[in-house]
């Protein structure tokens, strides 16, 4: 996949959230987008997903420019966003129903992904009966069932407790290596980014652009306590801390500036 990304967005009051944001994702690559809150990382993801309009620039998926949401880009939401009236299986089959795929084929596909995310036995259960981790398994399976070119994940484990979160990170890597999907993963957790990513893209705040790209060249499964892990982690933190301080400074001065504007 050739995914060139250049996005430019202006909010009301002419706040430039993103400017000259460029990012390419290689086929099958796992990229984490990391930055201080309000740096526009979620905005990047929502623009790629087609959920938010861009004020300039282009998004390409497999060399084709995309505009608006579409099933070629699967999204996993932090709040799961499952349809409460649909069972696990019917949630996963949602995209297939829209594609007018026959019932037998739908069942074959959904069974495949139910197996992949380890939800056997919960096919006919409704979301409210599931734990957070299991809900997100459904969310991942639902996005994958459409066989998207890229999987966009917006802090997908942000609503989970620490243990479940670690487990789900391992599960995601297993699912990723099984499906070989390109993943764009938004997070504010340095630990999560170093654990998951091939490449970590650090963003500057307002206007958001790529500040630094750090390649994580560690074999998986990664050991959080290993020296290499900790060293990369501190590299990332250093860049992030500098950016965070700048944001704080700006926010302080913004209080005066924004009233005038």
């Amino acid at each position: 996949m050739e995914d060139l990304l250049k996005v430019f967005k202006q909010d009301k009051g002419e706040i430039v959230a993103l400017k000259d944001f460029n990012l390419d994702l290689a086929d099958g690559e796992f990229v984490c987008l990391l930055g201080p809150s309000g740096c526009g990382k979620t905005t990047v993801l929502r623009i790629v997903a087609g959920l938010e309009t861009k004020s300039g620039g282009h998004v390409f998926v497999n060399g084709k420019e995309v505009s608006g949401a579409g099933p070629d880009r699967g999204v996993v939401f932090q709040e799961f966003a499952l349809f409460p009236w649909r069972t696990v299986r019917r949630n996963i089959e949602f995209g297939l129903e829209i594609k007018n795929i026959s019932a037998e084929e739908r069942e074959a596909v959904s069974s495949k992904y139910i197996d992949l995310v380890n939800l056997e036995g919960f096919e006919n259960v409704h979301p409210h009966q599931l734990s957070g981790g299991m809900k997100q398994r459904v969310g991942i399976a639902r996005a994958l069932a459409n066989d998207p070119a890229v999987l966009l994940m917006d802090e997908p484990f942000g609503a989970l407790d620490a243990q479940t979160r670690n487990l789900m990170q391992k599960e995601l890597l297993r699912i990723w290596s099984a499906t070989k999907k390109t993943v764009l993963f938004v997070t504010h957790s340095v630990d999560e980014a170093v654990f998951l990513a091939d490449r970590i893209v650090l963003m500057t705040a307002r206007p958001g652009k790529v500040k630094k790209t750090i390649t994580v060249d560690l074999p998986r499964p990664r050991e959080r306590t290993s020296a290499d892990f900790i060293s990369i982690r501190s590299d990332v933190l250093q860049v992030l801390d500098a950016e965070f301080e700048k944001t704080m400074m700006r926010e302080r001065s913004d209080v005066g500036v924004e009233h005038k504007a």
Partner: protein
Amino acid sequence: MKSIIRVAKEGVIRHWRRIFLSTLSIALFVIVWQAYAWYLNANDPGYAGFIPYPGETAEAFIDSFVTEDPTGLLMTDHIFASLKRISLGFLLAFAIALPAGLLMGSNRICEALGMPIVEIFRPIPPLAWIPIFLVVLGHLWGPVAIVFLGIFFPILFNVMLGVKRVDPLLIDAARTLGAGRRHMFFKVVLPFTTPYVMTGIKVGLGIGWMCIVAAEMVGQYGGGVGYYIWNRGEFGHYDYVFAGIAIIAILGILTTGVASQVERRLYIWMGMK
């Protein structure tokens, strides 16, 4: 396992306590009624006829099903006539309010076009139309039209509310899964709105019963429980008037009960409960 059994037992106890308290509540009401009827008979016999004893009312209740009233009808005929009007009014209101609510909830132009008319007609009590509807539309469709107005607005407003409250996150999710306008409507908006529709129906049915009684009291032909109450009142048969009132109460409870059951089944079927 043990704890499950204990919970089940507690559930049963709570259930029986509930039944006991409900029975007690009704028993207390009947006792107060009986006492008041005694009091009137002893101290104010002139008014005693208006408040018959509970026993007399019960007798009248049973008698209304077996003996023809002054108009030559049995209570079952009246119940049938009222149910027919309520059903027609309800079906018409539902058939129009549901699509209108969906349309006005999802389309700004439709809302802007519809709201002024809705706001003009909504505050008018449906009963204000009695003099016109009963003359123009007759003894069947006149009351039906009044019931229709009573049921229409609660359904319309609840459906509109439901459509407007559709979780934007679910809209986002559906969009990324490839849903266009048609799929969004049938696979997201409509199922999301269903509980709101049911609330509208329940509120509407309650108002419907209030309307039907008043509409029938004025109407003179074709029977109906409202008409029965009015007619018996003119003859001074107050025990039968009370029996008619009890019938209305029971019918109201039954129809709302049926709606609640439908709602419960619907929620279970949709997996929302």
